[in-house]
């Protein structure tokens, strides 16, 4: 049996089509019918990921900064504060997203009024991504040259200014790279959020593709997810390259 015929068999088993070529043609023919659903789901995914990214930055960035500045030898050493923050972040990081999603259901209901739909999904997505991004922020800030921070002290710079004018700008390429990782993780989380009715491409894949055995929806959502992740990654890489001065 050649590889070709094996592929045909597998595809045939999955799609009931006569051969791979026919399967692709059937898929493409089906695309216009699926498009309204796909377009809506894509918008939902982008909407969830975008807002969750904004919240992750708003909370995760200061959190990551605090993790560094409160550490021993940091700008404002505070071992107790740091230990608490670090423990909270670790708890957030150790829960699998699917568990976290269920665990925060009542918080979601309290904040959004419902646990269904893309807006409701923003809550667990943000909570899942905040500690993730905070650790990445911490890592990039730690790579800032200590001598440079010390030089800023020697020039009589306020600590707040050191964070804003030295540490964050020096770490910027790393921060952007961390942001891209967070966005990509959020896209994957958002697909999982679909499993409990969060909406978006993941939701569509499960409703149409898994529960109704419609493989065309499955393929289409996979393709769209890949395109979105690639776009986010390429944009991020471009920015990082532009900003790196080393």
């Amino acid at each position, binding site marked *: 049996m050649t590889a070709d015929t094996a592929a045909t068999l597998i595809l045939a088993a999955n799609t009931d089509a006569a051969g791979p070529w026919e399967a692709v043609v059937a898929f493409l023919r089906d695309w216009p019918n699926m498009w309204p659903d796909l377009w809506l789901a894509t918008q939902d995914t982008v909407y969830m990921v975008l807002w969750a990214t904004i919240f992750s930055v708003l909370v995760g960035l200061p959190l990551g900064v605090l993790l560094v500045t409160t550490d021993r030898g940091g700008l404002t050493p505070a071992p107790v504060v740091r230990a608490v923050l670090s423990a909270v972040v670790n708890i957030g990081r150790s829960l699998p997203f699917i568990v976290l999603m269920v665990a925060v259901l009542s918080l979601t209901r309290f904040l959004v009024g419902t646990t269904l739909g893309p807006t409701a999904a923003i809550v667990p997505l943000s909570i899942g991504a905040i500690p993730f991004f905070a650790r990445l922020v911490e890592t990039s800030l730690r790579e800032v040259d200590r001598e440079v921070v010390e030089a800023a002290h020697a020039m009589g710079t306020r600590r707040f200014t050191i964070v804003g*004018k030295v540490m964050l700008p*020096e770490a910027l390429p790393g921060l952007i790279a961390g942001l891209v990782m967070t966005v990509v993780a959020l896209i994957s989380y958002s697909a999982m959020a679909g499993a409990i009715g969060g909406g978006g491409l993941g939701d569509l894949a499960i409703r149409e593709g898994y529960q109704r055995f419609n493989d065309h929806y499955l393929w289409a959502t996979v393709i769209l997810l890949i395109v979105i992740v690639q776009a986010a990654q390429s944009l991020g890489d471009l920015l990082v390259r532009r900003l790196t001065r080393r």
Partner: protein
Amino acid sequence: MIDAVGLHKVYRLKKHRVTALNGVDLHVEPGEIYGVVGQSGAGKSTLLRSVNLLERPDAGTVTVDGEELTSLRGARLRTARRGIGMVHQHFALLSSRTVAGNVGFPLEVSGVGRAERRERVGELLDLVGLGDKARAYPSQLSGGQKQRVGIARALASRPKVLLSDEATSALDPATTDSILALLRRLRDELGLTILLITHEMDVIKKICDSAAIMENGEFREAGRVLDLIGTPGSLLARSLFPLPDLAGPDTVVVTYPRSFDEPLMSELTRRFDVDVNILGGGVEQVAGQSVGRLGVDVRGARRSQALTYLSEHGLLVEEAGE
């Protein structure tokens, strides 16, 4: 200009304590270039960082330009620090900013307006010979150029004092010389007082007026370089002029804290009928003067008269056999 009295600093690590400063007194005159040498771990950086209070000493006081820094905290300490420039071993430039952005940083931080900043940055870059590099990023510069940017930045707030921790240690010999020449020129033109840390005796030789030798958190020796060289048993003289091992019974070490006067040796043979045999040593420019230091065997019946004669002519004579 810099007066530090009774500095103590102990670092408490998990298991043991490290005494980095053990009662150091430092006095640097205005307009002087003062060098501190010593082995790794002697406490040199801790001392330097105590001067602008990057490290707060456990005991002792630091006074710079009449202001007692050890009594200051918060905003007043930050303001005082702006009067003290600092140059770092690895340049400590912000990689995300251009050369102009780096030099302008201390001005930006102290609230100087954009236009004034621009003008001052231009002046500073001309001063260090980098007028054409304003828009370059540090990664596009050589080590020597980076240190020039570091020096320009340190001078931005018109400090009277410049601190330098191993500013030339990451540079090759030719570049080191050019940076040392720049420091001396800045001292001459701006009347700067410079306190520098180094492990290279060459730096002391080339630009320092005064020096201290540090060991285990203490000064072993401190003072004007030429005075120290003229002091019997000087560690500094021994480090500046390493002599071959010459502990013969008749050997003396002769130091000339003035221009080398060679005929004096033949004079010795003639007058006192002694055998003079030069074992090693040399003449070097130190603190702008030529200073000679030789290991010499002097043998003969009238040896002691010969040595007295040398002393009377202003030479420092030390028996090496002891």
